[in-house]
């Protein structure tokens, strides 16, 4: 019975302590809010306080300029990011020396004209010898989807959970698309009568027509492809168009072999020079 009485006393004491604990946070919260208010008042009146808030603002300014710099340097602008961590460490004795943490990341931003939204998970396992970090899940949402070449690439990147390859290839893809646009615009400007961009400068084709020889048209299709390994390569093709009579007169089969010859030309002169020579050859009459 003594033991029981002792237990009763112990329980009553614990209950009293718990009751106090349940009431405390509210009071603590109130206190901190009151303290915060007074700090704010202090900052508003005290000159020293003013300086320290300036410090905060200048520090923020420095960080924001660092962010702008990084965004310009990489060409990738991250607008939003958040992360949640979940501790998966198994508390059983056997695996106590192994720590497992699952991180859930959310990232969104844009790379020039392409905006992306990513959600991925990283599993970090720390054991006695090493720390390993593995991406265990990757979800990519991209727009605009007018670049059809990208959708296949995105699913491949998701499958391989290769986040870094996604960004690297994205950069090179965008770089090539912009180069293509600049090149098309350059030729349109230089040969306004001959060069036509039926789908705009951002598209993949450029048509070259001779003003004095209507009916002849050379269409250059310039695709930017991303291969299995994430390598970005330009692929150019020539589609010649000529009236039937011209085909009959073409004994040397120049038109037939044009696509192949174009490939060879690309190899020797490079893209810009090859396109230039093509335009010039079609329009020699116009520009002589």
């Amino acid at each position, binding site marked *: 019975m003594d033991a029981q009485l002792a237990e009763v006393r112990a329980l009553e004491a614990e209950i009293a302590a718990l009751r106090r604990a*349940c009431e405390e946070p509210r009071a603590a919260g109130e206190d901190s809010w009151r303290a915060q208010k007074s700090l704010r008042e202090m900052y508003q009146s005290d000159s020293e306080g003013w300086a320290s808030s300036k410090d905060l603002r200048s*520090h*923020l300014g420095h960080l924001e300029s*660092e962010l702008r710099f990084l965004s310009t340097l990489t060409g990738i602008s991250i607008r939003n*990011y958040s992360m949640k961590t979940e501790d998966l460490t198994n508390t059983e004795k056997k695996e106590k020396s192994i720590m497992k943490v699952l991180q859930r990341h959310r990232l969104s931003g844009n790379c020039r004209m392409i905006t992306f939204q990513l959600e991925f998970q990283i599993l970090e396992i720390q054991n006695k010898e090493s720390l390993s*970090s593995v991406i265990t899940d990757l979800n990519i949402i991209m727009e605009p989807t007018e670049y059809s070449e990208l959708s296949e690439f995105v699913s491949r990147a998701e499958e*391989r959970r290769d986040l870094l390859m996604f960004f690297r290839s994205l950069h090179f893809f965008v770089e090539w698309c912009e180069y293509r646009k600049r090149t098309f615009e350059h030729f349109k400007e230089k040969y306004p009568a001959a060069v036509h961009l039926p789908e705009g400068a951002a598209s993949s084709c450029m048509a070259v027509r001779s003003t004095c020889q209507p009916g002849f048209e050379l269409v250059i299709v310039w695709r930017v492809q991303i291969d299995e390994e994430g390598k970005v390569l330009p692929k150019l093709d020539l589609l010649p168009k000529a009236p039937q009579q011209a085909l009959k007169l073409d004994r040397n089969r120049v038109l037939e072999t044009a696509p192949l010859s174009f490939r060879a030309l690309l190899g020797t002169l490079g893209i810009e020079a090859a396109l230039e020579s093509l335009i010039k050859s079609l329009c020699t009459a116009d520009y002589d």
Partner: protein
Amino acid sequence: MEWANDGKTRGGVLAHLERLEIQVNRSRKNLEDLQRAQAVESALGTKIHKLRCLRDELRAEAKQRQARVKASTVNVEPDQTPEISEQEVAKRRKENVKAILQAYRFTGLSGKLTSRGVCVCISTAFEGNLLDSYFIDLVIQKPLRIHHHSIPVFIPLEELSAKYLQTNIQHFLFCLCEYLNAYAGRKYQADRLQSDFAAFLAGPLRRNSLCNLLSFTYKVEPRGQSFPFCARLLYKDLTTALPTDVTVTYQGTDALSSSWEEQRASHENLFFSKPLHQVFTSFARKGEKLDMSLVS
């Protein structure tokens, strides 16, 4: 008990009865005491039980409050706090910007501004495995130059910087990123082959520091005694993690039959198209399947 057979017999019986009565009374008292004690004990028992329940309830409530307080300090909702100071806004924006700066490492390129310019950090990964990172410290002057770096000597840094550093720094960095990631991928494959599939190799894996030339002698079945194949993998394109040249030769002691030739040719294809350690994983799996078929 002896009955005295004398004139005092009557007194003896009475005395005896008296004694019995006292005994009964005592027992009854004892019993009553016992019952009272038991009642008190059981009341105590009930009380203890009630107190325990109350204590457990309070414990749970206290835990909930703690969790709520913790959660609320992590996700402060600006709309709910009555007066939010400029301080708070700036502080939160600062935390957000800091987090975004950290997140750049997932793009492969991240960095910090330095007094001279910028220190760029290049991260590498292969198929979801995050690997080493390297840094390159750039001085922003005319001309742009590299102050110092941790890029391995066999990566063509001078070549790349001569071509692109002055004209297109973004292209320079991403090219470097390509080379480093490809190297990290090749190294990862070679390391995994050595560590996970040592049983399939005769002797060590021969490799160079750039990990673009590998040669090894191997077998396909874990139980086999001989190592019938010898492979040589060359990765001419330093920006890829798959070989450009693969030669598999048959070295077995049996005569080169069509089945060996078939295997040899299919292995060559495998090495071209799949990462090295994955090829061996498929060998191991086939071996398991074979074992299972033997057993059943």
